[in-house]
């Protein structure tokens, strides 16, 4: 490649996405390199299977390529958009593959990882740091319920079955847990229930 001027890997996310959508080789390569660890991370976290995760991650990039023109920067970031695509694909794959609830050990490990502040907070966005903090402050049963629903795509009924509680209780945990996380992202509204 003979790139002069601003290298493609320093261009904004939106420009790389535009290039991917248009089939530009240099921008497509830069786009994949920039986001492949994020996409694969989401997929393998949900699926716990590297082979399945790679297939899902490839599908995610293909969808981004196919639907790049539908990205709307007013609605969020490219990273968020791509993460959502990947997550939905992973959840669909998970549902086809198994009806078993998430392994309790995996859930505990994931909760520790996403709420851990020791490594990433220094470079993270304020909202991410606030969310991690709020996640740590949640009652454990609410944190588990929100994680099972939000990351593993489990319904309230599935969460109730996994936790041995009535479906109404699972719904309440999801609701209050997510509301508290939302409050953490809206400082003026932040108040622990």
């Amino acid at each position, binding site marked *: 490649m003979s790139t002069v001027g601003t290298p493609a890997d320093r261009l904004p996310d939106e*420009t790389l996405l535009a290039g991917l*959508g248009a089939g530009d080789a240099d921008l497509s390569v830069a786009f994949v390199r920039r986001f492949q660890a994020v996409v694969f991370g989401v997929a393998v976290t949900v699926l716990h299977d590297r082979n399945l995760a790679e297939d899902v*991650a490839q599908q995610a990039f*293909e969808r981004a390529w196919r639907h790049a023109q539908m990205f709307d*920067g007013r609605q969020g970031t490219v990273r968020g958009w791509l*993460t959502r695509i990947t997550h939905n694909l992973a959840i669909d794959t998970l549902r086809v593959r198994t009806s078993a609830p998430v392994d309790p050990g995996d859930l505990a490990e994931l909760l520790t990882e996403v709420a851990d502040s020791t490594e990433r907070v220094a470079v993270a966005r304020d909202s991410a740091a606030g969310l991690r903090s709020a996640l740590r402050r949640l009652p454990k049963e609410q944190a588990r319920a929100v994680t099972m629903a939000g990351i593993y795509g489990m319904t309230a009924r599935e969460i109730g079955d996994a936790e041995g509680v009535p479906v109404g209780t699972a719904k309440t945990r999801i609701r209050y847990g997510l509301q508290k996380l*939302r409050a953490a992202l809206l400082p003026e509204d932040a108040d622990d229930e």
Partner: protein
Amino acid sequence: MSEPTDSTGTSCDGFAAMAAELALGVLTGRERAAALAHLDGCESCRELVRELTMTGEELLALLPSREPPAGFETRVLERIGLSAASRAQPGPRRRADRPADGGAHGPAAGRPPGRPRTRMRSVLSAAAVVVALVVAGLGGWGLRTATAPPTSSSVGYPSSALSRAALVTTAHQTVGMVFVYNHTPWWMYMSVNLGDVGDVTVKCQLENAHGQFTTIGSFRLSEGYGTWGSPYAIGDGIVGARLLSANNTVLATATFS
């Protein structure tokens, strides 16, 4: 909240009990249908769901990154029609051909090289795209379109924000591609392959709706080929671009439709 109940009998309080599950995409069956019906007529509850959806997406953003297996990048590029061989080709010919939305998955191997593609057509077919996106599982995007019927501006925005046009010489030869991101931060990018012209410096200008050209910058081509990107500060409303030689001879022009 604006209305005590909607036509399905769901109140805002009743909806609030389902909002988190709807936002996380785990509400099923009749509850989901009732929730969406309520949202159609309740702006404040739409805002609640929007905030909860954003919260869910922030939660996903906390997931750890993981390096994929070796060769992943190559396999992705092959999947979208950018094989290593095609990437080795110069300049504007190095583009993936994509099937029209709704077609079979995978690159459209049968599309003739250089044939104008029909990306805009899918954007204009709003209803079909909305359905496709929901089926494609694009999450909040599907929710947004489901809860607020798309307007012409919302549907048209992406295509107008991400414009592209071919750089064409006076001899009608396509020698590159220009991309303009018509939204803050304004950025442009171009790839150029002028062929056998050696190592030369070229200049890029953008044209506004009043026909005024502004020089954005210059860059050097290596053996006639180069890619270049730059922010620009002349606002939106870009209608064209042109490539000039060092002595200001117009080498190629592009017009954004």
